[in-house]
């Protein structure tokens, strides 16, 4: 069994998102035709179907829309942190992201949060959120 934590699979559609995290910028795909941002990153706008995506830096702020605290030790690599939280954040731009809440408090739905960046290693930076 692996004791490494899993890593995201990064492909052509999501690479700008993860490159942004490495620069400590939360980037979103935004449609230049209808103005809407979407997640998870796709090549075209799921709202107006236009092939006109531009990557824009997001505010990094949002609200917790749901959460869980994981007790079951599915991953040996997470055992030291168990139990740990997982949150979904509704960004002020609209789309939702899954992440972790740092700072040691139990998440609450509606709680305001802001992004922080965690440099895992030279190749990967993960976004996390802290109370705003």
């Amino acid at each position, binding site marked *: 069994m692996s004791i490494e934590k*899993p890593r995201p*699979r990064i492909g052509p559609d999501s690479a700008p998102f993860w490159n942004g995290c490495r620069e400590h910028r939360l980037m979103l795909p935004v449609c230049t035709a209808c103005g809407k941002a979407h997640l998870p990153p796709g090549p075209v706008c799921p709202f107006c179907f236009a092939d006109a995506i531009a990557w824009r830096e997001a505010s990094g702020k949002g609200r917790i829309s749901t959460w869980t605290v*994981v*007790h079951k030790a599915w991953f040996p690599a997470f055992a030291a942190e168990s139990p740990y939280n997982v949150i*979904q954040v509704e960004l002020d731009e609209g789309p939702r992201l899954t992440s972790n809440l740092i700072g040691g408090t139990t998440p609450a739905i509606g709680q305001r949060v802001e992004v922080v960046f965690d440099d895992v290693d030279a190749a990967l930076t993960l976004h996390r959120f802290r109370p705003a």
Partner: protein
Amino acid sequence: MKIDAAIVGIGCSAFGRGLPDSQLRLAYAAFKQALADAGLERKDVDGLSIHLGWPLGLDYDRVAEGFGLDIRYVNQSWLHGRFVTNALQHAALAVSAGLADVVACVTAVSFTRERGFLGGPGDIEGNREEGGTHGEVPYYGLTAPAGGAAIAMQRYMHLHGVTSAQLAAVPMSIRRHALGNPRAIMREPLTLEAHQGARMVADPLRLFDCCLISDGAAVVLVARGDHARDLRQKPVRIGPMQGTRSGRDEFIFAPRGLGINQQSAKRGRARERDLEVFGQGVARDEVQGFYTYDAFSPLVLFALERFGYAGPGEAAAFVQNGRIGPGGALPVNTSGGLLSEAHVAGWNSICEMTRQLRGTAGASQIADARALQWGTAWGDSVILTA
């Protein structure tokens, strides 16, 4: 093309945890029993519809080769519980269209031996670039279907003021159905205290909100209506149906509008276009029992809301006071479902529905059962009729 199909034979292996048998051996026991039940022979089966393939289950070509079948129609979906309805629908469509005479829906699972695929480092489901289809994001520690059910139920509880003790009515009611079922793995009564005192898996889901990790097989044989009338059993008709809902407003483990992943956060009553199953000759108030994929207890609430048995946020109240238990107004999963009988990916419930409509369900028999609904939290459904 009009669908004209019936379930003509059912068979089950023993159900258990840690069974030593291979999936193919489990399937053999169920297959032989289904053939005998129908009065058919192996050579009569010319179609396979497979819900769960390798590694938890069996792929169609392994079944065909291992059992020496000569197959002319196959359907197989990706390894996921959501396709139970899909597999039964494909069987019904295939026999109606003449693509096969008898389709065997074969489900054989060894969850205990292969449980590493269900979550953690071996969970390939969660490793999609955009995350897993139950919301898995392994690099943040969210893995396994339970994670998706947990984040959905957490928000549902917040929005609608529902408690874990109310949710407990689901596994407690389904356990009561299992008490009289000799095939069921869980045959001890489940109390509220035991539910509330059990370990947390992923908040708010406790141990008994999560289905069994078990082994077993079920085979369901489907034939065209005229053929079915000539066979040994009273045919159980595969009646009204509707397909899986998918789109940006859908999350596999949530009703519409709950606000999970990219769903809208506008809750509302089930739309007419999502209730088409009730417009084909059986009205909702004619349904005498409801059967659903109870992998996690919240899915029962979400399925009841999907099909309009309860309004948004009202299913938790709906399931109280024995309404879905034995003798209730709408019994749910009368053999014990995935929560208490066994996790045969819902096919144990399809077999139970068949027994009910034949009038051979024994202790769990619904009086004069004529119309029973299978419907899932992701919006697909089949109504079986006597």
